[in-house]
């Protein structure tokens, strides 16, 4: 036997299968199939944690996912450790380590418990009112202390070693909940021929049959029928049964998120298995069969360990074979707690008294209790309880006053009735409606293709639940478009347990408001008094009451507390309950791990890493890479002993002295094909393309409609009706999108098509005085002479035996080529070129050298020297704007008054007076360094480098009316000093451009 409180002959667990686990370091034994909660109770442990705010001792309230108290840190090792796990949901496995939370130094003696003594100071709204002043103290003093004292578990500090899986799933009918109703609906839908997914959060289906044992369906006990039904479903090809699977989020158009706990219950899980699976289900129809959740009674000191829901005690007894105590008191407003009392008594547990707040409960129940020798106190209330770390007694009397007596107990079970679990329905955006007859909120009109069945829809009778759900399952299959094969005949069903009777709000007779702690929300430590206080302080909407008191805002989403809180507020406001309204339920239904949410997107799968065809060579040759969007680009190639600065200086000198090779593959490329291709480019770019001859290329500027520079690049005309367009690396997808947008929606009459060819071509830039010498022997079919192939031309031919589009162009100011080859040949062609280049003293260079070389020539980089508010004129690129074109994107925007008036920031060169000072990119520029702070900023630095070729620093920046003040001294104030700069032309090398044509 594992645990003193295990009752022989009770429960459904197999005695032969024992498991060992620890709780706060203490070794304990349990049985396979135990929840952590049932295992602890079997070992006589009710004290499982300290409450959130007052650090009050707490134990299990429930036996399900609604649990507000028994939150623990559960794990196998330091990395596999999860805080805030509900002990009532977590199954015990061999070697499990469970720890209580929110206590110091120990669970039994907790310093934070002083909060409980000081609790008059911690009423609702206390934080808002007390820690207002001084303002600065909130962040530095109050918040850290409050957070340290409150709070729950501690997140693990080690990386999660497990993996997680995602599955998109599609089905005709998704059934949420595997109780009698859910199983009936699933069977009916499945037999009709629908594809069905049935999920249930528990290890086994059966729902309320975990506690209700006096049931029969189709001649079997309810539990046995549920297991048989599940087996039948599991054997059908069109059905997927998912246990340990919580539907946590109901999104638009029947998109429902399920999380399946795959290995959380296993002692030695197969490492191939994911810890959890996220199922993203898209269902044509959803059947919600989520049952009902029992409410506790709200009375003084109703939170001591050992006080729990009646259905929980019944589950522990009938399912786990565990008695929650030896002397169990009962306090109820609902019939179902009587059934729990009867089960306990029959199992040999002493039940000193059933206290029913109702004056006239069902006489049959009273007679039954007397038969079993249980004292019955009708019209009575439990006025208080005693006991430090476990309940010891209950004080019983009539609510109106008069005499009372104390009854010794070691557990107290309670029921204030059942709340239909409308969370999923509410998440589907359905509005609940108040049912006056049964005094509860029920699902109203369905706004998605769903239906609620069984207890969550207010159906109390088991037979009605089964037949109603079967009908709903059948109809759901039909509505999903299934050609119904046959109707499943719902079996006869019967139960002895009545769920009649309910009360909402605090039970009467619990004494003065000032001293009494009658808990409504256990997880957030909200009492009835707090809710009354909130109303007195002017919170008249339930949404305000909720936020002021935090009632229902803990991770349990107020599953047990919402209705009580609402009823107390309604009573205070003297309004009917439905007029006060119910707060909205939001996903997730229960907490979901980050692992399940990110699933596959971890490590290298977090974000795609894009590499070019030459990446392998670059890596082998020592390149340091930089991230440019998702691309890895070779940044610089340090040789032994070189730092970045030295490597870049060497690369810069080498390119201008000899030559360099650069991987330009990431530049965006778009093939523009069709008879109207030139006309389309006329509209997309500021330039005119009509006169560009095939075989020539041109630098183009693209604007947005507002007149600001959007992208730039070189465009080559391959044939009359075919252009090879290049874009910036970062701009490739958005430029394609931008061009498609205009083509499809504004200029659909144009006969032209766009195809992204960014990745079709590997691009090797060979730049420098010896560029032609390097490539010439490898090129076939192209005359490379200056006369035949001048700067800004493009030819098709072959290189190293493979096709090439060879561009004569330059982003360095040197004569150079960009060799485009089909990407799979990129590495081989690069190697062949390198074999030529290296002996000639050329180098491979990276993006940093590319940046420096282009800045030496004053070539802009869109996105660095422009920021979305720069016009062609601002950038000094007016020469690229066609003056005679009737239309192009941005033609009107760039003529807006603010863009053509004076006072625009214009792109200029900047030279620091001290040539050794390299300005900081982004630094602000002022005219007068001695003005008062805040200074008037007239520009900023956009690009700045050390230029080894110039032997000094160079920079570009935008300055108000900068072109008109060349030669003037401006200032860049930095924290440590103010730097003098001279406004100059932005071309620092070869102003005449003779090298390009070399």
């Amino acid at each position, binding site marked *: 036997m594992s645990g003193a409180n295990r009752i022989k002959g009770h429960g459904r667990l197999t005695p032969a299968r024992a498991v060992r686990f620890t709780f706060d370091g203490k070794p304990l034994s349990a049985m396979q199939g135990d929840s952590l909660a049932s295992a602890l109770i079997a070992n006589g442990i009710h004290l499982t944690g300290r409450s959130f705010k007052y650090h009050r001792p707490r134990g299990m309230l429930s036996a399900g996912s609604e649990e507000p108290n028994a939150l623990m840190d559960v794990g196998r090792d330091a990395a596999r450790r999860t805080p805030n796990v509900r002990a009532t949901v977590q199954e015990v496995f061999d070697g499990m380590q469970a720890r209580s939370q929110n206590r110091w130094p120990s669970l039994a003696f907790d310093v934070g418990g002083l909060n409980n003594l000081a609790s008059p100071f911690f009423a609702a709204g206390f934080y808002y009112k007390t820690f207002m002043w001084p303002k600065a103290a909130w962040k530095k003093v109050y918040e850290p202390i409050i957070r340290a004292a409150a709070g729950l578990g501690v997140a693990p500090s080690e990386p999660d070693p497990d993996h997680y899986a995602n*599955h998109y799933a599609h089905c005709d009918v998704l059934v949420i909940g595997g109780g009698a109703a859910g199983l009936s609906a699933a069977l009916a839908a499945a037999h009709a021929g629908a594809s069905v997914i049935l999920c249930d959060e528990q290890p086994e289906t059966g729902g309320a049959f975990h506690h209700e044992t006096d049931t029969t369906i189709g001649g079997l006990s309810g539990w046995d029928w549920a297991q048989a039904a599940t087996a039948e479903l599991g054997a059908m090809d069109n059905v997927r049964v998912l246990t340990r699977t919580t539907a946590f989020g109901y999104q638009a158009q029947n998109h429902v998120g399920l999380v399946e706990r795959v290995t959380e219950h296993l002692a030695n899980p197969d490492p191939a298995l994911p810890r959890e699976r996220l199922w993203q289900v898209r269902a044509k129809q959803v059947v919600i069969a989520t049952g009902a959740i029992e409410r506790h009674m709200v009375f003084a000191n109703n939170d001591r360990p050992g006080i729990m829901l009646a259905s929980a005690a019944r589950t522990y007894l009938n399912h786990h074979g565990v008695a929650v105590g030896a002397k169990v008191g009962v306090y109820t407003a609902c019939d179902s707690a009587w059934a729990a009392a009867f089960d306990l008594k029959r199992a040999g547990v002493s039940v000193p008294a059933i206290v029913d707040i109702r004056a006239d409960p069902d006489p049959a129940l009273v007679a039954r209790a007397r038969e079993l020798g249980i004292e019955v106190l009708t019209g009575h209330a439990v006025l208080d309880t005693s006991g430090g770390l476990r309940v010891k007694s209950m004080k019983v009397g009539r609510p109106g006053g008069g005499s009372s007596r104390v009854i010794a107990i070691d557990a107290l079970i309670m029921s204030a009735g059942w709340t239909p679990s409308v969370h999923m329905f509410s998440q589907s955006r359905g509005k609940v409606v108040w049912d006056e007859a049964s005094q509860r909120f029920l699902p109203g009109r369905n706004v998605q293709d769903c239906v609620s069945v069984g207890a969550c829809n207010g159906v109390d009778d088991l037979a009605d639940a089964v037949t109603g759900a079967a009908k709903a399952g059948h109809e759901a299959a039909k509505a999903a478009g299934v050609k119904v094969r046959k109707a499943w005949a719902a079996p006869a069903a019967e139960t002895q347990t009545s769920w009649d009777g309910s009360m909402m709000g605090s039970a009467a007779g619990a004494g003065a408001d000032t001293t009494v702690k009658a808990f409504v929300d256990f997880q957030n430590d909200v009492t009835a008094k707090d809710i009354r206080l909130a109303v007195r302080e002017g919170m008249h909407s339930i949404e305000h009451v909720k936020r002021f008191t935090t009632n229902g805002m803990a991770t349990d989403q107020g599953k047990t507390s919402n209705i009580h809180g609402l009823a107390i507020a309604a009573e205070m406001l003297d309004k009917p309950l439905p007029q006060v309204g119910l707060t909205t339920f939001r996903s997730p239904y229960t907490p979901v791990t980050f692992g399940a949410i990110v699933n596959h997107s971890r490590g290298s799968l977090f974000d795609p890493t894009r590499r070019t065809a030459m990446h392998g060579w670059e890596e082998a040759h020592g390149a340091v890479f930089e991230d440019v969007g998702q691309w890895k680009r070779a940044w610089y190639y340090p040789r032994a002993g070189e730092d970045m600065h030295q490597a870049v200086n060497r690369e810069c000198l080498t390119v201008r002295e000899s030559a360099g090779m650069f991987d330009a593959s990431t530049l965006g490329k778009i*093939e523009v094909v069709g008879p109207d291709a030139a006309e389309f480019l006329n509209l997309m770019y500021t330039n005119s393309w009509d006169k560009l001859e095939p075989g020539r290329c041109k630098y183009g500027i693209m604007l947005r409609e507002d007149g600001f520079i959007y992208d730039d690049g070189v465009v080559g005309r391959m044939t009359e009706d075919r252009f090879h367009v290049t874009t910036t690396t970062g701009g490739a997808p958005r430029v394609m999108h931008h061009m498609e947008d205009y083509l499809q929606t504004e200029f659909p009459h144009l006969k032209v098509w766009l195809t992204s060819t960014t990745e079709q071509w590997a691009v090797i830039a060979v730049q420098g005085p010896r560029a032609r010498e390097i490539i010439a022997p490898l090129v076939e079919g192209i005359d490379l002479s200056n006369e035949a192939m001048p700067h800004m031309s493009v030819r098709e031919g072959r290189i190293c035996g493979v096709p090439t589009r060879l561009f004569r162009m330059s982003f360095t100011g040197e004569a150079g080529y960009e060799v485009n080859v089909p990407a799979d040949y990129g590495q081989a062609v690069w190697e062949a070129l390198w074999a030529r280049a290296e002996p000639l003293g050329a180098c491979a260079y990276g993006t940093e050298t590319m940046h420096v070389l282009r800045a030496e020539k004053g070539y802009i980089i869109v996105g660095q020297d422009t920021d979305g508010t720069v016009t062609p004129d601002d950038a000094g690129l007016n020469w690229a704007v066609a003056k005679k074109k009737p239309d192009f994107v941005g033609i009107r925007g760039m003529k807006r008054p603010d863009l053509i008036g004076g006072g625009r920031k214009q792109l200029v060169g900047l030279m620091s007076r001290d040539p050794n000072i390299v300005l900081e990119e982004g630094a602000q520029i002022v005219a007068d360094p001695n003005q008062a702070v805040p200074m008037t900023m007239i520009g900023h630095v956009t690009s700045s480098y050390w230029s080894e070729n110039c032997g000094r620093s160079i920079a570009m920046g935008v300055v108000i009316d900068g072109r008109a003040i060349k030669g003037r001294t401006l200032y860049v104030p930095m924290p440590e000093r103010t730097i003098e700069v001279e406004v100059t032309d932005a071309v620092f090398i070869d102003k005449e451009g003779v090298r390009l044509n070399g």
Partner: protein
Amino acid sequence: MAKSAQAYRTEPLAGRVSGSAGVQVTPASPAIRVSLRADPENAKALSKALGLDLPFKPKTSSGNLPGRLAAWLGPDEWLIIDEAGDPLADLRKAKVLHSAVDVSHRNTAILVSGEGARATLESGCPQNLSDAVFPVGAASRTVMGKIEVVIIRTGETEFRVECWRSFSDYAFAFLSDAARDCLA
């Protein structure tokens, strides 16, 4: 001019193999691929040139690999894949207005085959890939994980995943990760 050796070809996923008990994940053979764009009224002549009926119905394909396959990607867009012949050369014979762009090296493909092939793809693709909605021959541009792909169902338990070259590393790694749980 010295005749240089023909450049060798490096396929992005060369030498990679992956999979699990339920699925094999393998790089596809090189193929000639064409992004073909044309008004549907000119498709007849293009079909003739290609020797295959270009599909007009969304999400469908015609033809078979290793021969020639044409997938409908949009109302005026087809992806032609051919592991044997040269569709670019054939299209040059068509005199009707169209755009044919060589994307042989832009794309690469991964073959996903076996009992768990569909489940492997369903880890990353939000489309309904069931037999009824995505039968053999179905083809669609869509997403898988964080990238765009074209999925072609080439057999009951066989899929071809086309993606851009630089995304193939991600695609292969994603499919390998998903393969672990394809029999769930």
